[in-house]
């Protein structure tokens, strides 16, 4: 094989254009940071934001073009799935930029480095969406993870932030090692790192012990990344300690990227081993949403509550995967829809948390008391986000849960219905803690009686605007957004 000589692979510049544009923006930020005086560092944030917006242009042209593109013998693919996820990452990343800029300036943190790392991480996510090869998936995963370890520890004089970064790093590295171990088995067996090739091998070999072991190792590795129970223990501490905009980023984009990798590797790489991963996902999903919910009920810190809530939401995102072999495209569409809506909603919730914390300087849920009196706009926005997270129509989260339940019931027979029932009960339990925040905002007085209004910086306002509109649009006119989610080409492009 090796003797055949090396042929330079064909590079499709249009397909890589989003990555190229973002990488250029990344370089630009580094260079600009070198030459900007301390007082003008804010320009780097503008550059980062513009870079992300510019990255959106080739995504649109690729979407308009509509052809699936495949490079490196199917190892790097641009199809609808990849494009939708890239769009989610770019928009999500842009909102994170909006959330971060004031926070960084006021907190007097390093700026240029922050934006560089943030853009690197997003670049890793873009690569993740297209990777259909063990090596490129692993590289993309490290590319997006390593910058976020550092971002989590950005408040470097704060002990909790250091703890956050360190915990995240140690467990993340451990998860990568476990995953890599599984991948090495798979490579040894299939003698290829290409997912399509692996799929062909697994189909032929059937469920052997070695395959089962490598599948489980890989899924466990990703389970750490997406903080599925019982591999979630790092998440609350990391989320609480990290700077809030970074927490928003981790709970949304990093998590989504983990799911993207998981979907690709499992559904493209070893769909034939469904007897191994389907039950595994079933248990993971049920555990994750139930325990995530139960622990979220006990939190009195809003960020920790949102951390556990995001663990629980992860359980819902895992649900369709438990029946993916029979519901096929529906499962992926449901996961992607959920990820997109969850991204908009959760970022919005964090935007409100950031805005409120500017005044109260506190992260306890009781600091939301009486919010509706002095910041009715924020209270209404937060109510919409919480309703969406809880899955109450007409907010977007309802459509997310609906598509997930549809996918699970469509493919799963009795097991699917059982899982859907668990999901349904959990979405009721979840209102316990989402409703609790609503209660604070609407029905309790301000804790210290201070009802002076909150001054919300422009960036946060824009972020709130984007996320609120997106959340409601997903709920009221889902078709306007969902039609981009036709992912029927996913399997064909991968295989």
């Amino acid at each position, binding site marked *: 094989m090796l003797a055949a000589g090396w042929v330079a692979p064909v590079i499709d510049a249009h397909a890589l254009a989003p990555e190229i544009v973002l990488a250029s923006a990344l370089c630009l930020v580094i260079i600009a940071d070198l030459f900007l005086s301390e007082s003008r560092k804010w320009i780097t944030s503008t550059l980062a934001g513009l870079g992300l917006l510019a990255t959106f242009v080739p995504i649109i042209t690729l979407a308009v073009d509509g052809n699936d593109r495949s490079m490196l013998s199917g190892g790097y693919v641009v199809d609808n799935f990849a494009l939708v996820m890239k769009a989610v990452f770019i928009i999500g990343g842009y909102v994170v930029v909006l959330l971060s800029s004031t926070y960084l300036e006021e907190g007097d943190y390093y700026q240029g480095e922050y934006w560089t790392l943030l853009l690197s991480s997003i670049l890793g996510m873009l690569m993740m969406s297209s990777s259909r090869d063990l090596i490129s998936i692993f590289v993309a995963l490290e590319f997006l993870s390593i910058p976020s370890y550092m971002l989590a520890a950005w408040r470097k004089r704060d002990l909790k932030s250091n703890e956050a970064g360190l915990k995240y790093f140690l467990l993340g590295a451990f998860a990568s090692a476990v995953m890599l171990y599984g991948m090495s088995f798979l490579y040894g067996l299939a003698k290829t790192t290409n997912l399509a090739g692996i799929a062909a091998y697994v189909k032929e070999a059937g469920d052997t012990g070695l395959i089962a072991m490598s599948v489980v190792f890989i899924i466990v590795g990703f389970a750490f990344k997406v903080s599925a129970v019982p591999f979630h223990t790092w998440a609350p501490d990391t989320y609480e300690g990290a700077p809030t905009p970074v927490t928003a980023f981790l709970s949304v984009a990093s998590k989504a990227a983990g799911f993207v990798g998981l979907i690709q590797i499992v559904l493209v790489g070893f769909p034939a081993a469904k007897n191994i991963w389907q039950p595994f996902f079933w248990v993971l999903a049920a555990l994750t949403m139930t325990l995530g919910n139960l622990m979220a009920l006990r939190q009195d810190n809003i960020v920790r509550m949102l951390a556990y809530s995001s663990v629980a939401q992860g359980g819902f995102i895992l649900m369709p995967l438990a029946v993916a072999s029979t519901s096929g495209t529906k499962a992926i569409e449901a996961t992607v829809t959920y990820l997109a809506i969850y991204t908009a909603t959760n970022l919005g919730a964090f935007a409100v948390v950031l805005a409120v914390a500017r005044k109260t300087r506190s992260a306890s849920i009781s600091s939301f008391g009486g919010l509706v009196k002095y910041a009715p706009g924020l209270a209404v926005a937060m109510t919409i986000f919480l309703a969406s997270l809880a899955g*109450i129509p007409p907010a977007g989260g309802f459509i997310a849960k*609906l598509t997930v339940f549809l996918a699970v019931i*469509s493919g799963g027979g009795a097991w699917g219905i059982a899982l*859907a029932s668990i999901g349904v009960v959990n979405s009721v339990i979840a209102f316990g803690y989402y409703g609790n925040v609503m209660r604070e905002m609407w029905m309790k007085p301000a804790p210290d009686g201070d009802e002076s209004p909150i001054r919300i910086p422009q960036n946060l306002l824009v972020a709130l605007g984007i996320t609120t509109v997106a959340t409601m649009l997903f709920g009221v006119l889902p078709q306007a957004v969902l039609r981009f989610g036709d992912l029927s080409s996913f399997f064909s492009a991968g295989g």
Partner: protein
Amino acid sequence: MEHLTDQSGLLSLGVFLPLVGVAVMIFIRPAEQALAKLVGLVTAVATLAVGIYTVAQFDYDKAASLQFYTNRGWIDVINSRFIMGLDGLGLPLYLLSMVVTVLVMIYSWNHIPEPGNAKSFFMLMLILQVGMAGTFVAQDLILFFVFFEIVLLPMYFMIGVWGGEQRQYASMKFFLYTLFGSAFMLLGFLALYFKTGAESFSMEFLAQNAPSIARGTQLWIFAGLALGFAVKVPMFPFHTWLPDAHTQAPTQGSVILAAILLKLGTFGFVRIGIPILPEAAKAYAPWIGLLAVIGIIYGALGCLAQTDMKRLIAFSSVAHMGYVMLGISTLTAMGINAAMFGMVAHGLITGMLFFVAGSVKDRYHTLEISRLSGLLKQVPHLGWIFGFCVMASLGLPGLAGFWGEFPAILSAYQPAPGLNVNLFRGYMVVAAVGTVLAASYLLWLFQRTAFGEPTAEFGGVASGHDARGHSVHGHDDGHDSHGQDDDHGVLAAHDDHRADIYDVTPLEWLAWSPLLVAIVVLGVVPGLMFKVLDPAVTNIVDSAMKVLGG
């Protein structure tokens, strides 16, 4: 069944018009409460005008057909469409929801409960209106579900922010109960969708195709739907949220809850449960009937044990909804007609009772039955209105309540073919006993609160003289009560109470008289509504029987 598509935008206009008002109100500054109230009221009146126009344009000769029918794409990926249509079944409740919203707003004009903020209060009522009206015209299950759930959050806030002492507990309980029920209802909807080939959520399509589902599956699906509806009704044993919610809710919330929200559940049974799953409906009918009569007796006994007027009325709702459910469980045209009539009648009457309770609370600052006495002497108009509603509620012939209760009981004499006749006759007897209990708890309530002399605490005989005369002409608008303090400094101990006691204000007359008139008119000419209901109900029962027979 053919659909009439003339003026197909009318229903969307009627349903979504309140949102325009909400959008406008967002931009009104909090200081301008009067303007906010005005915009809210104008929107509600405009919505009602659209509703009245709709009812006027309705073709009563074809009341069984869906009219103003609209069918557009909505969420194509899950085959859910935006389908709306109004038939005789939905029409009375559709209109009632609009009327009640307007009346509640009129009542709220100067009765905004603590902690004030009329702007938000009116906005929530408008959002509620969207969900209520939408539920009665939606013809697609997902659309129905969305409307069904839209009412939750506004009501949650209405109870939780403007409610009584236990408001936070009550609002959370209300929310979790209904959410729990509707979550399983949603699962049922999804199962229906898949078991009929994952083609459509349209009620019409499902009614044609669902009977082919295996019987065992149908039973499971119906159980899910019934759970959602039963919590909302509420049927025994899912009723426990209701007394808390009603007692803690502000008057306006109680009225809307009693008049419309409870009907979403019973309406769901008739609109969705029976037409789509007739076989399962028949299988469950004896159990539904059983829970219904338990509800009747339990609600009545609960009433007898209450010491709080509002809580008593809330428990009487449980009993009344029992009659409605009994009518539905017979699966006969007569029973369902009675049930539909009963829903409207209960909406009018119990809505009025909660209005009266709210006004009593305004004046006496208590609803403890033992502390109230002599309403007829002290506030004669209010007392007589109260008496009138009590009579209507206990089912006095000639008033609307009778036509919901009596035919429902009677229909149990001859339930649909295939149901156990003796069992239902047994239910009939129990339900009839329930009416006696209803008469006793209602009359007892009236006797204790309205008869006799006003208590000393509220400036009655014990402290002498002219409490009544004073209060009647002293307070026409009822809100500058403290201006009168100087007049009777001698009675300082009872001053606060006495000063607040005044008879029905013009604004209350304005808000109440439409309901009072409707109670009489529907009582004397029940045919007005039966004429609208009957074709649609007969249509549902006939097609259900066709499925069961063939």
